[in-house]
């Protein structure tokens, strides 16, 4: 079965058209950010809400603030394995999806998580804690 060879012009036309079409489709399918709920931004909370030697968990924002003595630590609760929200336990954190465990400093105690939980920047002023997520 002999087919007519595709001409250079037809090939180029098809190539350009599909590139343009692909670009248009890409723009159509990626709306401006902010259309939905985003996990970025700043979270504010009162120091008094964090129990001594305990933790305040904000599951919606995926943030936990831990008090150890007079120190406060903030953690991103997104598991470094596949992004589930970890639970705060007495010993630290544990992930319900695949069983990773983290210590109170966010370090990995048990896999499959490859990295420690992300520490978040935290600022204290007049009894108010502001946790910032980049």
């Amino acid at each position, binding site marked *: 079965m002999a087919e007519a060879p595709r001409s250079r012009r037809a090939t180029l036309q098809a190539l350009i058209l599909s590139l343009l079409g692909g670009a248009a489709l*890409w723009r159509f399918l*990626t709306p401006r950010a902010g259309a939905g709920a985003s996990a970025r931004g700043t979270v504010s909370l009162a120091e008094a809400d964090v129990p001594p030697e305990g933790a305040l968990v904000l599951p919606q924002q995926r943030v936990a603030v831990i008090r150890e003595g007079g120190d406060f630590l903030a953690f991103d609760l997104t598991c470094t394995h*596949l992004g589930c929200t970890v639970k705060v336990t007495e010993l630290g954190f544990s992930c319900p999806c695949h069983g990773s465990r983290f210590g109170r400093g966010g370090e990995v105690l048990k896999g499959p998580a490859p990295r420690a939980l992300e520490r978040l920047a935290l600022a204290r002023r007049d009894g108010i804690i502001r946790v910032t997520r980049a």
Partner: protein
Amino acid sequence: MLKELVKHLFPRLVREGDLRKTYTFCLGGLAFTSLLVLTVTGLLLLFYYSPAPQTAHASIQFLESDVWGGAYLRSLHRLSSHALLVLLALHTLRVILTGAFLHPKKMNWIVGCSLLFLAIFAAYTGYLLPMDQLAYWATQTGMELLRALPLGDALRALLVPDDVGGPLSLLRFYALHVVIVPAVMFVLTMLHFFVIRRQKGLLPYL
């Protein structure tokens, strides 16, 4: 006229050897049957499912508790989706073991592999739709796995523009699950059958 049409769906001649059950185990035919069951049950589920994060789970609970046959239909849809994947895996295995992916049938091997991947993708997109804990976290982990691929972040941005659980993402999974993926699968299935017919049935390699 309808009778004629149905008559033409079937080949005029079938070689006796092609009907040997122990060669194909009719795995492709069984997979197609699952696909038909999925289509019928899925079309019926469309009447009750609501593709918005706030209402999706409630609409399924309503279907299960207050609709006659609703729970049965949903179970049937779920079970046939499992059946489709298992049958496709076995069908692929049979094709590999009998060497049916070789030269004159290369085309159908490629079409068949595409169908296998599309079926997995259809199952994955359908998994999110109930919007329960299992659905949410399974989709979350799947989308995280996608990032390991080259261009994974771009693909992720296409599939879940407002993150797993967002309204746009759910709507996208819904559109893919009920229209786009099934339509492509249907076309490819017909092509799959057409190639077999063009080659006058199965080619016995073994």
